[in-house]
């Protein structure tokens, strides 16, 4: 058994900082933390261009002003704030915001707004915001799956596999799922997924009949983060094809032919945090954790 987890938190933080250089250094204020949440979720309908219900949420002054007939943020009391009530309603409630089936706010975003309101909804002063989640696995987003989801689903069905969204967040990507009929998933199937390669963030290929040729197809998935190749016939040399996978975080090679040389060369993958080698010729030789490398 070989696994990398040393320095996970540190490297996760570094990864995050690399993506959002501002976030680590600046204190949490309306401008740094609250406004981005409103911009992401609200200002499309409540902003400069459109003011549904006479409400704008694109500046601090507008947020505090509320709509023509009511205040939406009551400082220090999020439970009494209309804004908070609307974003925490069940998806099926006709008052829920965002409306029209658009993705609801994440619980982390809701918590952030709660903290800001509870702190008195300060305009510029910092408030005690929850730490940013250090989740390397979601740090790099895939393109919006919505325009291509129907086509991806149809193709997957035809091929006897599944392509399912990881969550309702459209940039969370798709999971390639094969567990219902792993033996049906082979190199030819993977080759046909090319039109959706950029959407696939996770590939569950354990016990499939893929070989080294399939790895070449997988190498074309630029946003692939988690790859499970448990008990497949991939070879030690063939695994070298995975080197273009710059975003790969987890690679499971349990019960494959991966050897020490494979492990050593896969360490070069820049995002890899976990490499699982149980039941391979490379086990129990310890490889140096890729995550411990300076980034």
């Amino acid at each position, binding site marked *: *058994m070989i*696994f990398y987890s040393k320095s996970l938190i540190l490297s996760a933080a570094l990864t995050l900082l690399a993506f959002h250089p501002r976030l680590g250094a600046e204190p949490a204020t309306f401008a740094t933390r609250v406004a981005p949440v409103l911009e992401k979720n609200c200002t499309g309908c409540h902003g400069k261009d459109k003011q549904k219900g006479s409400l704008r949420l694109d500046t601090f002054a507008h947020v505090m002003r509320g709509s023509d007939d009511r205040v939406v943020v009551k400082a220090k009391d999020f439970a009494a704030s209309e804004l908070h009530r609307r974003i*925490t309603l*069940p*998806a*099926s*409630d006709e008052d829920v915001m965002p409306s029209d089936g658009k993705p*609801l706010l*994440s*619980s*982390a975003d809701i918590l952030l707004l709660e903290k800001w309101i509870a702190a008195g909804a300060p305009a510029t002063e910092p408030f005690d915001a*929850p730490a940013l989640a250090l*989740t390397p*696995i*979601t740090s790099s987003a895939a393109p919006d799956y919505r325009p291509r989801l129907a086509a991806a689903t149809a193709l997957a069905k035809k091929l006897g596999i599944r392509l*399912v*969204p*990881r*969550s*309702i*967040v459209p940039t*969370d990507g798709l999971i390639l*799922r094969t*567990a*219902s*009929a792993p033996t049906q998933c082979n190199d030819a199937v993977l080759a046909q997924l090319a039109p959706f390669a950029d959407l696939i963030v996770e590939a*569950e290929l*354990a016990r499939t009949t893929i070989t080294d040729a399939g790895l070449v197809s997988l190498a074309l998935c630029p946003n692939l983060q988690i790859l*499970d190749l*448990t008990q497949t016939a991939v070879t030690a040399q063939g695994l070298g094809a995975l080197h273009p996978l710059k975003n790969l975080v*987890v690679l*499971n090679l*349990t019960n494959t032919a991966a050897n020490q040389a494979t492990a050593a060369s896969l360490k070069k993958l820049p995002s890899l945090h*976990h490499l*699982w080698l*149980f*039941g391979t010729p490379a086990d129990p030789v310890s490889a140096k954790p890729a995550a411990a490398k300076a980034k």
Partner: protein
Amino acid sequence: MASPHPLQPDLCSDHGGEHPTIWDLPNIPLGLKQEWLNLETRRHFLGRGAKALAWAGLASILGRSLPRALANESSSTPLLPHFAPKAKRAIYLFMAGAPSQFETWDYKPGLSSMFNQDLPESVRGGQQLTGMTASQTRFPVAPSFYKFAQHGQAGRWCSELFPYTAKVSDELCVIKSLHTEAINHEPAILSITTGNMFPGKPSVGAWLSYGLGAINDELPTFVVMISKMPIQVNVQALSNRLWSSGFLSPEHAAVALRSGSNPVLHLKDPPGVDRSVRRAMIDGVNDLNHQLFDRVGDPEINARISQYEMAFRMQTSVPELTDFSNEPSSTWDLYGPKAKEPGTFAYNCLMARRLAERGVRFSQVFLRSWDQHNNLPTNIKILAEDSDRPTQGLIADLKRRGMLDDTLVIWGGEFGRTVYSQGTLKPQDYGRDHHPRCFSMWLAGGGVKPGISYGETDDFSYNIAKDPVHIRDLHATLLHQFGFDHERLTHKFQGLEQKLTGVLPARVIRDILL
């Protein structure tokens, strides 16, 4: 006859020709039309007179009460997580009967010098006692008979009852401050399995099935295994109300694997019936069921159709699942020799790993007999010896296969036990009564911080001193790891947006999450 409207079934003659119906009206939301359909179906049932008896017979075959059969039920298409999940699957090692926290995970060194002293009145503070010990004249403190030692890099104090689990103590997150309302087994087990002490709510596994759907269509999404007991003392009855789908569609209920050599009864085709004959038979039954659905519009019929299909698929998936012959020898080193004996806790732990590998979302393994009102030191050791090695084996096996990161393992019972002895206290023999005010559980994997403890109890593990965790909070946290905001994983029933955590506040325990 094709229906002109997507949601409208073809109705019987007593409805035919009554046009226009509500279905023809513009500007009526589909949900309202669906509600009308349900009411209409009910009227239909009530109006059928003699045939109603047959209907009732059908409902009982389906194992459901009529009101539920007639309730609103949306499509069984899974929802999507609200955010990217950390856990894909969970394995819940349910220690039914409620293991004592004192001998397991809530080390109280200060008690050893207080043997047989009365529990200070200030600790209890006038709180009510449970019926079984309320009549005792004394409440003598019973320190743990078993010793503790520090293990792992985290230096966690582990009981000598769990020498194997102690080896993976750095993987565990022990929560010492769980609490519940229920003081007796049935309501407490129901509370922790379904979020409510009254029967009829969906089990945790059913909610996950409803929200996430299956990874593997060839196996059930939710599986329950009840382990053979190494000792049978104060055994709680378990039944499918603990793993039912409640008001959710019936396919979300668990399939309970039997603890014998034949885990699913009647799965093998009888002699002379080959696969194609079986397929033709199921197609015929499905056809009849589809016709019935078209007439009465009862969603439970669709659920039954899908269950026939699942059973057919399990005819091929289950034999492979239960064939342990391809396990490497290291498996038996991990889980111990008992894992070869079907139905033991060790066997079920190994089965849980095999289910997890094949994509089963939620496996719940029950081990009973932890209800030690008396003879606690003797009996808890027998259960610990039965379960310790395979528990460690499961954690280590998931870990080495790279599966622990996205498999949440849960260990625990339904409530805690009292610091004072129930019955006569001797140095080597005592009992403990039920105690809902605090108890310990542990979580491992699935995006939970390893090697930590959360929450603290007072010196007598009687009340919570810091960071209380209601079982609702545990449920909210569990759903969170599967990508769900517990406030938004809902299902409309009886006019309410029902949810696992109910109507009282629940919080995700963010401090224990990676």
